[in-house]
């Protein structure tokens, strides 16, 4: 591990001054569950860590009936929050499907959002080429063991996936990210935060050096009260997703009036399934319509050598989750 300095930031402005002002090698530190590991592997080599876990860890209702979630809220605290469970069950479910209880007790909301891919070639510093780790080096995953990798939105430079479960729900819920940075405060739709790899896979997000996530805001979204998260993985607990689906569905008189759908484990970013949503709004809530919507989303899927199964798997999981939500009526969270 390279030496680094450690400072606890008293507030967001202090954090930005400490990290963004002068030190190019500074990184914000949340629960450390990903960053400490990456530093130990020398994949991340910060010269300064600015601890932002002392910043907002509150969850408050907004005037509009949404929720404002402080960036330092721990994953467990978010999943167990009464209003998250009742208004956004897919979010509670997604968090509870991720990592382990110990890690969820440590990890913060912002840290979860900014965690890095678990692509084995990204981690294999000694033996593999990786454009995300070393821009321009090449990608050994594209022709390697790529069973876990992306089927949507990948590029010749990178086929890694974003590992978060929580983010899949945030993508489906139209969350907004509150940021502060050297240029002041601003807001960003969550869907615009993470990037597709293109030819710059080293950039996971659109954030600029020094930018700090201070909160995540959920809009009021009555449809989300009937929502679910389903994760398919190699073992039933404590594993990353092969494919996951976050979905909310509103049906009136047999017709889909609103639908929110996002996929995990399939792309470089949490994948909002806008094409499927568009295909489904106004359609009858039938399996045939769910099949067509899923197929519309996956039409441009480009599987690699080892992960063609993900296309069929995503199709089936989307249809199954929508089907369950349609059947569950008003009977709760449907999961």
């Amino acid at each position, binding site marked *: *591990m390279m*030496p*680094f*300095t*450690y400072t*606890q930031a008293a507030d967001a402005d202090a954090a930005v001054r400490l990290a963004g002002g002068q030190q190019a090698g500074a990184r914000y*530190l949340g*629960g*450390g*569950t990903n960053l*400490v*590991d990456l*530093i*130990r592997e020398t994949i991340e080599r910060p010269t300064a*860590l600015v*601890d932002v*876990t002392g910043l907002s860890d509150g969850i408050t209702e907004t005037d509009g009936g949404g929720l404002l979630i402080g960036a330092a809220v721990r994953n*467990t605290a978010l*999943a*167990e929050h009464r209003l998250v*469970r*009742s208004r956004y*069950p897919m979010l*509670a*479910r997604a968090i*509870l*499907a991720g*990592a*382990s*209880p*110990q*890690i969820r*007790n*440590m990890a913060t909301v912002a840290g979860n959002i900014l965690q890095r891919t678990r692509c084995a070639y990204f981690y294999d510093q000694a033996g593999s080429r990786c454009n995300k780790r070393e821009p321009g080096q090449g990608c050994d995953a594209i022709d390697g063991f790529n069973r876990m990798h992306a089927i949507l939105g990948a590029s010749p430079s990178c086929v890694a996936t974003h590992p978060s479960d929580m983010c899949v729900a945030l993508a489906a819920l139209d969350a907004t990210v509150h940021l502060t940075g050297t240029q002041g405060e601003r807001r960003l739709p969550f869907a615009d935060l993470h990037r597709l790899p293109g030819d710059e896979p080293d950039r996971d997000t659109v954030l600029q050096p020094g930018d700090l996530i201070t909160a995540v805001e959920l809009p009021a979204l009555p449809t989300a009260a009937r929502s679910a998260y389903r994760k398919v993985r190699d073992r*039933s*607990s*404590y594993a990353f997703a092969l494919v996951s689906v976050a979905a909310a569905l509103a049906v009136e008189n047999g017709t889909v009036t609103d639908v929110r759908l996002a996929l995990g484990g399939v792309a470089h970013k949490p994948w909002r399934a806008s094409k499927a949503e568009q295909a489904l709004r106004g359609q009858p809530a039938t399996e045939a319509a769910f099949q067509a919507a899923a197929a519309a989303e996956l039409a441009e899927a480009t599987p690699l050598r080892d992960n063609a199964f993900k296309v069929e798997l995503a199709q089936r999981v989307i249809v199954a989750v929508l089907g369950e939500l349609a059947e569950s009526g008003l009977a*709760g*969270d449907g*999961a």
Partner: protein
Amino acid sequence: MGITVNGTDVDLPDDPRVSLLDLLREKLHLSGTKKGCDQGACGACTVLVDGQRILSCLALAVQYEGRSVTTIEGVGADGALHPLQQAFIEHDGFQCGYCTPGQICSAIGMIEELRRGVPSHITGDLHATSIPYSRDELRERMSGNLCRCGAHNGIIDAIAETYRANPQPEAAE
């Protein structure tokens, strides 16, 4: 300000790179907490911080200034085992024993989460005020602690017996 470990105040390391795990083992010589994978995958390093279970390998010690850490050395004593330790013996909740301190600290933290009503991945009703101590619940909630000897069934038996018989926090102390 330092950090409290099993009721004793100790100094934080000068070097921020020192993990809580290395502070416990290398500086304080509390070798009960084990280093398994050192990358957050196995749970052998689980300790309690202010009653919450965390992974000490991924924790920088300096982040825990002013907090109270409990390791396996603070859970029981020679001749006065914690009921969970006794149950692990009776139910063959270990073979080599390497994961056991992490399993026990994890289970103590887990029971507090269950009592608090924190749902798990398999909890059917997200709004339930009382969650059953079922085997499936316990298995899911203990999935962050791996046992390469394969003693998981004994581990779940030990936890289930301990806390079904002593559902109240006081009774388990």
